[in-house]
């Protein structure tokens, strides 16, 4: 390895992984969550296969509760890249009226975990790229780059295949699938610095702006549409906020911030006093909740 910078080395690693998957896996797909990590992953895919288009489709699991700005951004990116964008929603869940306000963790299971399993089964994908990073959360810190799921889409953390050097073993038995995390070794800081260096478009929600919010259980929740049911005593107020992660708006906490530009966001990230996942409401359910959900098939 010569004098490549840290970002160059991370970029090279991710591209190497993507090319390996394209060469060895039968039917790959890239899970596109519209967030900043997905944006970086998409750009890396474009670079990895240039001048060819990435040889796999993008897929978004739409819970129907994403920020509307995210959906606009998704459709715009699909158009710009010319890649196929599969959008999948668990229609049964919609019919039953499963929503984040009334159903808590059942909502996440039905609209995210189950929806993802259904989509992967429907299209028969054998490998799915995800934007997960090891610095996000403790159980993720121990997951391999090529992470195997049995036919029930469950992860077996005690029985992970050894991953040696960069010799990735992509062999699977029919019915099994692989989750591949090309950004495993990136940190939040790397993601932001790369977005800045490469001028990668991201959803405007990452930048601070006056937005209608309520304060609920220690989180700042944005009122993105009229499905947001206000609790007694809650008042919608305009606050200058931004989001460090994006997901379903009722489950995503914002932070009060003045960071309107990338350099300001990076500055704020470098001096951050809390790790980014704390703004995901769902993670508070218990120290080991993420691992449990992953074992069950959550991405």
């Amino acid at each position, binding site marked *: 390895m010569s004098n490549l910078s840290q970002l160059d080395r991370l970029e090279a690693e991710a591209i190497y992984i993507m090319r390996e998957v394209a060469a060895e896996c039968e039917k790959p797909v890239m899970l596109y969550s519209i967030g900043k990590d997905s944006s970086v992953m998409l750009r890396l895919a474009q670079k990895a296969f*240039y001048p060819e288009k990435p040889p796999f489709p993008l897929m978004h699991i739409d819970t129907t509760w994403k920020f509307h700005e995210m959906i606009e951004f998704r459709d715009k990116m699909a158009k710009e890249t010319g890649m196929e964008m599969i959008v999948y929603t668990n229609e049964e869940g919609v019919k039953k009226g499963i929503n984040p306000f009334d159903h808590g963790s059942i909502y996440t299971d039905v609209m995210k975990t189950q929806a993802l399993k259904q989509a992967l089964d429907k299209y028969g994908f054998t490998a799915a790229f995800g934007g997960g990073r090891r610095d996000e959360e403790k159980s993720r810190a121990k997951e391999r780059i090529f992470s195997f799921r049995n036919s029930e889409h469950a992860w077996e953390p005690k029985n992970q295949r050894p991953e040696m050097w960069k010799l990735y073993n992509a062999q699977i038995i029919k019915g099994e699938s692989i989750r591949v995390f090309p950004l495993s070794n990136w940190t939040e800081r790397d993601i932001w610095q790369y977005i800045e260096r490469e001028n990668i478009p991201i959803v405007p929600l990452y930048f601070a702006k006056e937005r209608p919010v309520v304060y609920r259980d220690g989180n700042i929740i944005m009122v993105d549409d009229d499905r947001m049911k206000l609790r007694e005593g809650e008042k919608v107020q305009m606050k200058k906020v931004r989001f460090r992660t994006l997901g379903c708006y009722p489950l995503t906490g914002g932070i009060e911030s003045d960071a309107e530009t990338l350099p300001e966001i990076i500055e704020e990230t470098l001096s951050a006093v809390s790790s980014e996942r704390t703004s995901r409401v769902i993670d508070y359910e218990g120290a080991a909740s993420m691992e449990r959900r992953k074992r069950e098939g959550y991405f």
Partner: protein
Amino acid sequence: MKSLLKFITCGSVDDGKSTLIGHMLYDAKLIFADQKKALEMDSKIGSNDGEPDYSLLLDGLMAEREQGITIDVAYRYFTTEKRSFIVADTPGHEEYTRNMAVGASFAELAILLTDASKGVLIQTRRHLRICALMGIKHFVFVINKMDIVNYDKRVYDKIKADIMELMKDIDSESIYVIPVSATKGDNITEKSEKTPWYDGVPLLAYLEDIETEKENTDRDFVMPIQRVCRPDYKFRGFQGQIEEGVIKPGDTIKSLPSGETAVVKEVYVCDKKVEEAVSGQPVTLVIDREMDISRGCVLVNNDDKAIVANLFRSEVLWMDDTELQTGKSYYLKLGTKKILASVTRVCHSIDINSGKRKTCETLKKNEIGVCEIMTADKIVMSSFTKINSLGCFILIDSETNMTSACGVVKRELKREDNVVWQNMDITRQIREKELGQEAKTIWFTGLSGAGKSTLANALEKRLLMLGKHTMILDGDNVRHGLNSNLGFGEDDRAENIRRIAEAARLLNDAGIIVMVSCIAPYERDRKNAADILGEAFNEVYVSTPKEECARRDVKGLYAKAESNEILNFTGVNSPYEAPRHADLVIDTTGKEINDCVDELMKLFI
């Protein structure tokens, strides 16, 4: 731009690896406040004496929390003012050795922990050997729990001396030994006042400054092909990561294994056309002609170091619960090539503690051994020490898809090595049982006229009377047939002995007792014969002095040699190296033949 250091921590169970890294992150204020709060909360459950349990920062999996050990590699990321780090915290428990190897294959530097109250343990040796096998060249030894031994310099000195002794067998570029207390925080981010006798730097400062990356852009170009990029009929590019060297438009490259050459027309790094690309970069190369190149081929500018072969010797770490099976089909992945392969032979295993070889027929989980591997077709490889990326491989079980083993290429096996052993159903043991005897070779060495053939003949007659099955290979007689094309120079004498030994082995395999009578003047040739014949070899030195031999001169050769009619005559104008460790020494001067045979019978039959 900051540089990146990838390192691992390893050591025995309870040496305090997770605590060490946890404490380093905590002290260097490299953890987020909420993680810190969570740590303090978590620690209240099952903590040690109210002090935060720093290991909880790293031990992420539920199963680990329950068992209190680290079962899998945890990756941590932190950045200081000077450098960015990725640390793989690896499990110490023997059962999870393979997970430790995963961390080692990823790292440039290893931190090995030793408990000051226990010294260098078996696990430390095993981890060291695995780190070395995976290619790590930089080692930091942390002697932890110095607080328990009252920061005693003598304890540090003793363990350091043991470590230096251990490192004599390990190929390394740097070694550093630091006295530390992971729970108390001595010599982690700041130099401790409790170890005034320690004149080195604290751990973090050392990690920030050490240089591990070698400039390799001046090396020869090597790039394994990952895929062929063909967006339309006009464009055809070869994609891969440059492993070594530099490439520019106009460079001539060679594709292996075919050996075809071409000139590079365009070089892309990612989506940008460039004038030069260097090692580590992901590139797309366009060449000036049609060439049959696909995934698994390797592009080079000089094929000196690469080997194209289908049989090689390797050092392997077995990682699967199912033990190695010779002859079974595995997928071998080396570089970007995946191909069916089988282990043709397990040469020996290597004892982790002593480094000694042990003969064996299989390898079990966590064992290291030397194996011969044959691939279904010729592939491009290199010894691990010459080109890293073409010298390491994994074996994948073709039924379960488990990554069963990882290994490094030692060397290619050629010609005679390339002949595979055919296993016989009827073995030497079965034949011996059938013949009612133990097959062996009794090798008589000594000067011409010493009485070798006479003794061999007399012994054979005695054995025949006992119903034994025998054969004599006489040095003179063999030169009329099998070895008729050989002369008396050193090389030819060596070949003469080798062929006699091989012939004796075949006869031994048939269950026959063989007597060889042959001067075999050189120690090294007899040593070679002993290696070929193994345990069946017995050496008899017929030590009759030269004067007596010359007096007998049965064949009239001494007279001819003295008058220089014969050159290279052993004992006269060619040397005889007397055996130093013969099983029996017989001087036949003035002895009865029958007494000599009695002596031989007593010892060998």
